[in-house]
């Protein structure tokens, strides 16, 4: 089976990475993704509706996320569209987290040595 090299997607933009991180929690609709992004960034990242759906469209087109048809519960709004990570999306998200972790380690070491 052919696999897509996830490194070609790196580095991710902040909006893409935040949305992918939000989707690691499972299937979410637009507003839930927006809330998750806000809470995971402690309110620092606030994305608007068009940025959210524009970024989601790019992620779906790239095969990193997908829309999911799911049976609705009585409390759910049928107009809502749910999204989830694909396998590739999960790998890209993990790789970006690794990349940022390395960067943070590097920055931390430099700051400790008083280079800045």
């Amino acid at each position, binding site marked *: 089976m052919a696999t897509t090299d996830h490194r070609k997607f790196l580095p991710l933009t902040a909006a893409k990475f935040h949305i992918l991180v939000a989707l690691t929690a499972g299937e979410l609709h637009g507003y839930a993704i927006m809330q998750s992004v806000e809470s995971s960034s402690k309110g620092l990242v606030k994305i*608007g509706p068009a940025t959210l759906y524009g970024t989601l469209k790019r992620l779906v087109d790239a095969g990193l996320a997908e829309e999911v048809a799911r049976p609705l519960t009585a409390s759910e709004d049928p107009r809502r569209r749910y999204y989830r990570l694909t396998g590739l999306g999960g790998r890209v998200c993990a790789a970006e987290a690794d990349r940022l972790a390395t960067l943070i380690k590097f920055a931390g070491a430099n700051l400790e040595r008083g280079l800045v």
Partner: protein
Amino acid sequence: MFASLVRRIYRLLTLLYPTEFRREHGNDMALLFDDLVADRGILAATSRTSIDLIVTVPRYRLEAVMSESNATQVLTAGIAGLLILGFASVGVGLPWAAPVLILAGLGLALANRGRLARSIRTPDPSRRKRLLRRSALSAVIFVACVVGFIVVTWDGEASTPGLLIPSLMGTFAMFGAVGFLVAALLMPRTEVYPGAP
């Protein structure tokens, strides 16, 4: 009451986005805005979405313009413009500019031959009809320009601007008529009844 008005205004503002994006996500955005208003109030919702609108409308519009099909149209117009200006430059007493402009037009076409061929090779009956209509319209304009040119020069006292306008328009129309016709004829036809013998 006021919240409902604000929601309507936001729905209207989503019309500013490119059609394809609006069709796909217009309702989603409106629903999300409704959620924001319900959860955080009108002020928070409008302040967040107004910044979002200001940033994303021009960005998504630009992206739509630069999409494959639109970029090809811009490219084709650019090539046609260079060729027409090249031929027209002889008429306005700048013969040295003709080879430069014509070669630039041909070079641009050659450099983008893949993209141009792709746009012609994609079967699209409605687009072929559109191209044929444009070709016919260009031919009519060309004939009108030729007639205009003859009328202007009939008494032998034609002014330079009087000659320049029908000449330029006629050249433009001639290239249009031929170019649109060639593009329409090169486009493969789709089968009306796929699988029919």
